């Protein structure tokens, strides 16, 4: 059992989410930084996709009732060595500080977090409310017993921040000029109102072509760069709605969403073609 003493700014349980239910209106959800999430599980020898704690901007404080093996990946929140399996004795407390860069950290526990699943997933869906609510002080999380491998000894290397690769379309005709050119040449900053539903970009505007009328509702994917009438692009996150009415003018490559997951409010957002 793991007790949450303080969730910090925002923490939730995440696994691979709910793929396959989008046609009945269910967001994909799941860990925002998939690479960091899978790495954390690998380090402690968990089955792929075991539920972890995803916490934002450090601040998480917890106590373990029994001895457990854990691993921290994603943003390097001080408190535990990063990228390596660590044994915690019964009764141990861990308090994470604020990472100097990056936003989302992942804490895997050997055996996985074994809270009740909803639609085959333990993920908190912040848009539709499926799965458990976000973590709060006093929450007690059961640790599962399912493992698939030995604990991995080697430390991993942190992911480097780099530009987000975007693919133009499907509705790039809604932007005046070349959308990739427009995204790469402007200076963008991640807005403070960004969350797991969407990353909101500040700093510049994308000029929407006048007289476009209204677009019928279209299916969306995480990574979609949606352009509302105010010209302020939104990059869809894992909890984004599965259909939407604003044009998607470009899409961030799937693997680069791991980079996007680590952008902090105020960070520059750099695109590349």
């Amino acid at each position, binding site marked *: 059992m793991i007790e949450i003493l303080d969730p910090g700014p925002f923490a939730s349980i995440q696994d691979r989410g709910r793929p396959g239910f989008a046609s*009945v209106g269910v967001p994909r959800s799941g860990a925002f930084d998939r690479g960091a999430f899978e790495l954390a599980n690998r380090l402690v020898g968990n089955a792929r996709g075991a539920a972890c704690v995803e916490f934002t901007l450090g601040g998480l404080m917890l106590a373990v009732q029994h001895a457990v093996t854990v691993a921290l990946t994603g943003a390097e929140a001080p408190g535990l060595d990063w990228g390596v399996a660590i044994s915690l004795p019964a009764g141990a407390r861990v308090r994470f500080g604020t990472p100097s860069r990056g936003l989302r950290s992942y804490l895997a526990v050997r055996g996985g977090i074994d809270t009740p699943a909803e639609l085959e997933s333990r993920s908190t869906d912040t848009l539709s409310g499926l799965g458990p609510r976000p973590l709060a002080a006093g929450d007690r999380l059961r640790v599962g017993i399912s493992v698939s491998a030995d604990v991995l000894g080697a430390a991993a290397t942190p992911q480097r921040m780099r530009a987000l690769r975007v693919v133009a379309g499907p509705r790039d005709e809604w932007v005046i000029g070349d959308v990739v050119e427009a995204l790469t040449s402007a200076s963008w900053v991640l807005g403070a109102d960004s969350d797991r539903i969407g990353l909101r970009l500040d700093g510049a505007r994308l000029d929407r072509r006048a007289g476009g009328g209204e677009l019928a509702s279209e299916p969306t994917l995480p990574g979609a760069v949606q352009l509302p009438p105010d010209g302020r692009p939104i990059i869809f996150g894992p909890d984004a709605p599965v259909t939407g009415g604003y044009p998607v003018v470009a899409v961030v490559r799937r693997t680069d969403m791991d980079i996007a997951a680590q952008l902090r409010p105020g960070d520059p957002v750099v695109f590349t073609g």
Partner: protein
Amino acid sequence: MKFLPYGDTGVLVEAEEAIDVLALRAVALSVPGVVDAVPAARTLLVEFDPRRTSARHLAALLEVGDPNAAAAPVPDEITMRVRYDGADLEEVAAETRLSAAEVVERHCDATYLVAFGGFAPGFAYLTGLDPRLRVARLDRPRTSVPGGAVAIAGEYTGIYPRPSPGGWRLLGTVDATVWDTDRQPPALLQPGMRVRFVAT
């Protein structure tokens, strides 16, 4: 048919109308490497594993695939019993210059197609609404619509799966559980199904 890029793991297919989108979906879901195929009003988003297939390959398959053949199985039809006690029934009647009874009759006369989902888990957009019943959404959405509320807006009708905010015009209520995550499948209304309403 038009194929538009959607990042490195998706392709967006444009079709004429909802029924074509659903026929394409049936074809797409049978292709190895396709992870999901999500319909919306006039487009289908085919999500694929780029290690197993490609947008170009999928476009070629969907282009030649006979959507009518894939759609051939008779779709499930479900009849839903509705109490036409909605808060907006009289207003919709006034706006469409029909009596409330005529609004109900027209709403019950049609056979609807479950076209796509969105807005909330289990919420389905049903096409086939009598054109005479097309009304705009509320200017100011309600902060809370009860679960089971049957509503209309634009070319669609739908059922609120659980209490939520909402701007559609309320015609009535169903007792059926539209959404239950402990049920298999959780959504009563699946894309491709046919729906009829009967007044109780």
